[in-house]
């Protein structure tokens, strides 16, 4: 949440409050959960907790992708478009009511590859055209929506692929398959972040990009790769939405872009890069989902829900930064 430029500045804060910083969001999650649990008996039911976790699946996958981008200090607003395009792609490739395709898993893979391609495009625009990621990904999102609209061509493709439909319906240990897929994504994301050069370099790019260049690391391929990986996650998320809705919607990714950024930031990933990670973001996702679910459960008027949610997000972030406040701290 705080941005410190340069080595010297960061030297001054790191030692103080490093523990607080990472503890903030989980504590906030627990506190908010307990408050809702106290206010509403339905909220604390097992079924509802399952429901919260299930509902978090898609957002968690999108957030996995965006976290890598945020770690680099870039931003990614392309998820809405990429998810739309991937939703249409998958719904037209698996068994559906529009054509005779029935590629099953291959169709799903194709949708994910399409997501990769869009991510690759964002990355190229960033490193070759030097367009800030904010704009590059916004442009790619528009392109994705356009492509999705072209594929939609006026008739909603409904999927009849048994496997894809079952992802949203069948359960294992009380949670839907989609939730397990999301869990696998989180695990994969964590492994990438911790054990691969891609993940570590993404982290390092957020920390000090110029140092990597000085060390002879070619940064550009890694940036492109990070966007591509993020695109893969969005592609998968588009598939998951399609599984949930039973149809390929151009609007499959509506709103996920900002929700995912909110979740990541609430979880403690910095917009300026270099801090946070998949596990932080997962906490953020749960926090956001607990909030949306809890507000419905305790019966807050639909008119006020968005506002209350916004207020709590701001308050949660504010509370999390209190321990690290300093006078000459840069907050952007």
């Amino acid at each position, binding site marked *: 949440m705080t941005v410190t430029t340069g*080595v010297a500045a960061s030297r001054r804060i790191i030692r103080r409050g490093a523990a607080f910083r990472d503890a903030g969001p989980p504590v906030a999650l627990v506190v908010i959960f307990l408050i809702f649990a106290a206010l509403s008996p339905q909220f604390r039911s097992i079924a509802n907790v399952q429901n919260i976790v299930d509902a978090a699946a898609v957002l968690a996958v999108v957030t996995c992708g965006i976290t890598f981008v945020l770690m680099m200090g870039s931003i990614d607003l392309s998820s809405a478009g990429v998810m739309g395009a991937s939703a249409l792609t998958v719904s037209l490739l698996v068994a559906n009511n529009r054509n005779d395709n029935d590629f099953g898993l291959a169709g799903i893979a194709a949708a994910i590859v399409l997501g990769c391609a869009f991510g690759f495009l964002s990355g190229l625009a960033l490193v070759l055209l030097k367009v800030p990621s904010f704009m590059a990904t916004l442009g790619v999102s528009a392109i994705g929506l356009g492509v999705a609209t072209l594929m939609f061509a006026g008739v909603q493709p409904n999927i009849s692929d048994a496997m894809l439909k079952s992802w949203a319906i069948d359960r294992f240990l009380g949670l839907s398959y989609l939730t397990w897929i999301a869990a696998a994504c989180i695990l994969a994301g964590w492994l990438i972040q911790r054990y691969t050069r891609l993940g*570590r370099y993404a982290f390092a790019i957020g920390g*000090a990009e110029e140092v990597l260049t000085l060390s002879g690391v070619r940064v550009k391929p890694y940036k492109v790769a990070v966007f591509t990986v993020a695109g893969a996650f969005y592609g998968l998320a588009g598939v998951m939405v399609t599984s949930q809705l039973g149809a390929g919607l151009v609007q499959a990714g509506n709103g996920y872009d900002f929700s995912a950024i909110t979740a990541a930031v609430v979880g403690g990933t910095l917009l300026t890069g270099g801090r946070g990670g998949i596990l932080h973001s997962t906490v953020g996702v749960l926090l956001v989902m607990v909030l949306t679910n809890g507000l419905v459960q305790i019966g807050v008027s639909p008119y006020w829900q968005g506002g209350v949610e916004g207020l709590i997000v701001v308050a949660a972030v504010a509370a999390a930064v209190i321990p690290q406040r300093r006078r000459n701290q840069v907050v952007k």
Partner: protein
Amino acid sequence: MSVPAEREPATSAPVPALEVRGLVKHYPGVKALDGVDLVVRQHEVLGLAGENGAGKSTLLKALVGLVTPDAGEIYVRGGAVKLRSVVEAANHGIGMVFQEQSLVPNLTAAENILLGSEGAAVRRGVYRWDVMRRLAQEQLDKIGSKIDPLARTDTLSFADRQMVEIAKVLRIEQRSQHPPVIILDEPTSVLESKEIDTLFAQIRRLREFASVVFVSHRLDEVLDVCDRVTVLRGGQSVGEVATAGAVPRELHRMMIGSTGSDDHYHENAAEPVEAEQPRLSVRGLSGKSFRDIDLDVAAGEIVAIVGVHGSGREDVCRALFGIEPTSAGEIRMDGKKISLPNTRAACAAGIGYVPAERKIEGMVGPMSVAENMTLTKQKARCAGPFVVPKKQAGLVDRWIERLSIRTPTRDTAIQRLSGGNQQKVVLARWLIGGDIRLLLLDHPTRGLDIGARSEVYRLMRELAASGVATVLLADSLEEAIGMADRILVMNDGRVATEVGCPSGGKPSPLDLVKEMV
């Protein structure tokens, strides 16, 4: 370009590890390198001396492929090479520790050491942390550093980070079968004297298996650790000195082309202080990293605070400028109690602060010299609420001349100036208003060449003479002793002792060091 096939008559002297001939580099408006020649022999420590902007960093960057020279040749062990990237330079066994520390703060020390040349620690893009730890440990063992390879770099002390950088640069050994050439650009400017001693021990050890190029503005250090010194001036090599028996003065003469004053600290300009009431009076000031600080500074007095890293002197300074919160104590200016909730209040009280981290905190790099200079005392360039360009131009030009700041124009971005000139602009920022009463100088000469330093000292004397009170966190004990009228020794957040330091009755560094630890 014809490359002589056979270099250097192969008589007694072995082939030099590195040789540079006639290197030229133009930047818009400046000739940073103007035909430099340089020879680095095997197993020697070569010093590189020169004023700020003499072209040292540019030359060294050319040696590691970060700067592409416009003309000239580089020979590695006798063979002509073109260095286009850091990796190519590393493949030829050349590595550099940069002037500004260049580690990724949020990675572990091990990762930083192996960054860009992970070798066996990364297989097909996958990290093997155990191997990484081992490889990093090997590097650290080479220089005898005891830090934990898996510690995050930003939790390390400055000195430890310097060790990490050296360990990192030594990785080039893995890339080339020849003895490496290690370049250190101003590694000591941010180190304490004890850390400098450790570093020098490392450098001497490196000589056993490598060649070292060492840059520092502290000429005594250069003479101390180097075998030979090459002096640069205006992008050209103007001479070479064997260090045995050489004195700083001689080097200095070569650097600037004439003999500088012997009175480095301008002590003869020091005037005795007689004040009935202190300008600044601090009583019982406590904060996070300091307690019960009492401090008086009279008008015209220079008080130095010395202490090791962590003694809290920097935080005291920042507290006096309203950046660091305080929990107790009172601050009086000219007898009047003031509170300093923020930097604005401090400025309003006539306090000025020159931070140690010039690049990050001292100046706004992309903004012009004029804007940087007038950033604080806006009134000086305004009529009512409006900026008057003419007034600003006159004012800025006057101060550029008065402090002899070397800049193409007043509208040049300050980041394109040399360090010394940048520092002068930052100092001028506080002076143009003519209302400064107390100056807090945190390592004001860090990274400055001997001439620029001398000018900063002269400026400090002038300011003192005009009645400005000064608190100085000096770059070295010598500087503190040379400049101060009085020295406070801080230890673990408290004032350990106070030593009078009048002209003629200066204490010895040893007296102070006793109290510091």
